[in-house]
């Protein structure tokens, strides 16, 4: 649908240009003085040294959630791979060693050069195993292969970096609720 925005016609003072030019000069001067005298209030930051605060809801680099015993929660159901519009997730499944869990990924790779960070994998995951809340937005590697995150790199995250209210993160090894979660976890009856 075409939406027409009606512009207010300029009055004759505005059409004279010179006064509006002065108004513009006033505006730019305000910004200049802000930058000069209140440098710290600039909305831009000197990037590599100061990073803007990124909320956990931002779709950043992926991580795989962990069970209390440190194995990835992923059950290799391929839902993320099926949902992925960029086809950047490669999974190979295997039988789990834990008798209570049937399936586990033997390979789980995300090619971050192909990934479009749409977050559909997170939406698709039935067991909340993949998340994009690492706030890690920029990562640099030397080779293309290094950009392929694998099972090892995806599970290398520290529970202390995440909120204490985040039960799933804190139940992972190293988290504050890990001990508690591990106790109920170890009640294994085959």
């Amino acid at each position, binding site marked *: 649908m075409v939406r027409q925005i009606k512009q207010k016609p300029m009055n004759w003072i505005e059409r004279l240009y*010179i006064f509006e*030019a002065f108004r*513009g*000069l006033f*505006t*730019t*001067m305000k*910004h*200049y003085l*802000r*930058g*000069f*005298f209140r*440098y*710290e209030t*600039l*909305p*831009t*930051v*000197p990037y*590599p*040294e*100061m*990073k803007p605060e990124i909320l956990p809801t931002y779709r950043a680099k992926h991580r795989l959630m962990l069970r209390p015993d440190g194995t990835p929660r992923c059950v290799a159901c391929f839902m993320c791979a099926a949902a992925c519009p960029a086809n950047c997730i490669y999974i190979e499944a295997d039988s789990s060693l834990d008798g209570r869990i049937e399936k586990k990924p033997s390979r789980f790779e995300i090619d971050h050069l192909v990934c479009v960070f749409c977050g559909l994998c997170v939406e698709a995951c039935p067991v909340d195993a993949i998340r994009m809340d690492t706030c890690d937005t920029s990562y640099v590697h030397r080779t293309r292969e290094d950009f392929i995150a694998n099972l090892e790199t995806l599970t290398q995250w520290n529970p202390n970096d995440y909120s204490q209210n985040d039960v799933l993160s804190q139940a992972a090894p190293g988290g504050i609720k890990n001990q508690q979660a591990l106790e109920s976890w170890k009640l294994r009856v085959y």
Partner: protein
Amino acid sequence: MMEILTSRHWLEWAITIAKFAFAFVPIGFILLLIPLERRGAGFIQDRQGPNRSYFKLPYFGRIRLFGWVQNACDGLKLFFKEVYAPNHVHRILFALAPAIPFAIVLISPCVIPWFAPMVFTFGDAVIRIPGQTVDSEVGVLLLFGLSSLSAYGAVLAGWASNSKFSLLGGLRTSAMTISYEVCLGLSLMGMLLLAGSFRIDEIIAWQDAHVWGIVAQPVAFFCFLIAMIAETGRAPFDVAEGEPELVAGFHTEYGAMQFGLFYMGEYSHIGINSILVACLFLGGYSVPFVEMSTIQANVGISLGVLCGLIVLALLAFLHMIYRYSRWYKTSSASNKEVILREYSLYKLLAWAAVPVVLVLGILSALFFHPEYTIINGEMVYGAGVAFGTALIQLLTLLVKACFFCWVWIWVRWTLPRFRYDHVMHLGWKVILNIALINLVVTAVIAKLVLGGN
């Protein structure tokens, strides 16, 4: 030959030769203008501006000088790049063109008076030194004539590049220079009429005696300023190098230091024009609200006040540094230790300078009492007084010029570029007419009210 040499005192000769150094003042302005432009544009657009490069000092680490180092690095890069010419250019003219605007920059400030004419006694001799390098009767006309020559650089570059973008850029430059030279001259006429002279030092003297040109001729001031901006080819009148239409205009085919010469020529031109506007409409070297004779009579105190102002500026700088240091300490910047270490250098230098300047000021205020002799009913002071006064006047002029430099940048980052026909329309149909009416009205008023001849 010897008669010419011996007709003047040797000191007069020495100073006259030394005054050629003023030719390099506009080039010095480049050092000010480029960082001012780039950082200023950043702040106006709510960003940081270039501030990444640094050099290393043993203890203080990475010194960025608030981004000034980056400009030096960029200049250095331009300097060391390969000078390259495309195959299809006219070799000689292509190489010659960038030199023209830069050469003119060195010549054109010759008629600008940097200080009031000095008259002082040196031993037995009474030495008179005019404020400008070339003491010419045509004054400002000479400057206009010289600075219009810089259009040749653009035109030649455009033609020699043998590229349609360059050619169009050159054409536009020449057209604009011609158009706005008329406005420039005519808008100035009122001021010349009032002062009754082409000599800039006499115009300044008239302003000193009456009011500043900006008050006496406000309309002329605006016309002059606009014409000046247009003549330097800066935004909003930079149609000659409008990148959406002409890539980069007349210097499309240039790179490395050849482009750098155009670039430096443009900035120097801004510097010269700023100085000119300051001279013609802002009283030039005359210190506001203070008579020159007062300064001369109390030169020690005047220098003391100058030192005091410098100390105030240093303290303001220190205040800023301390404020930033405090902020950095609480910020999350990963390099805050580096920056605080850098700031400690500035603190050290500023704190070292403050007492030195303060003591100098106090000393000069207390102990610098000028002595004078009366020659032909005029008080004539010694060389010290003359140089002190000249220093104050020079600084006054440069401060005023710096303000106008900022106006150039300010306007550039505020107003969008005009269309080419709009520029021509403004030049020929608006500014020119206003300048003509202004001239007529000024002439009538000058005749009727002021009773001039």
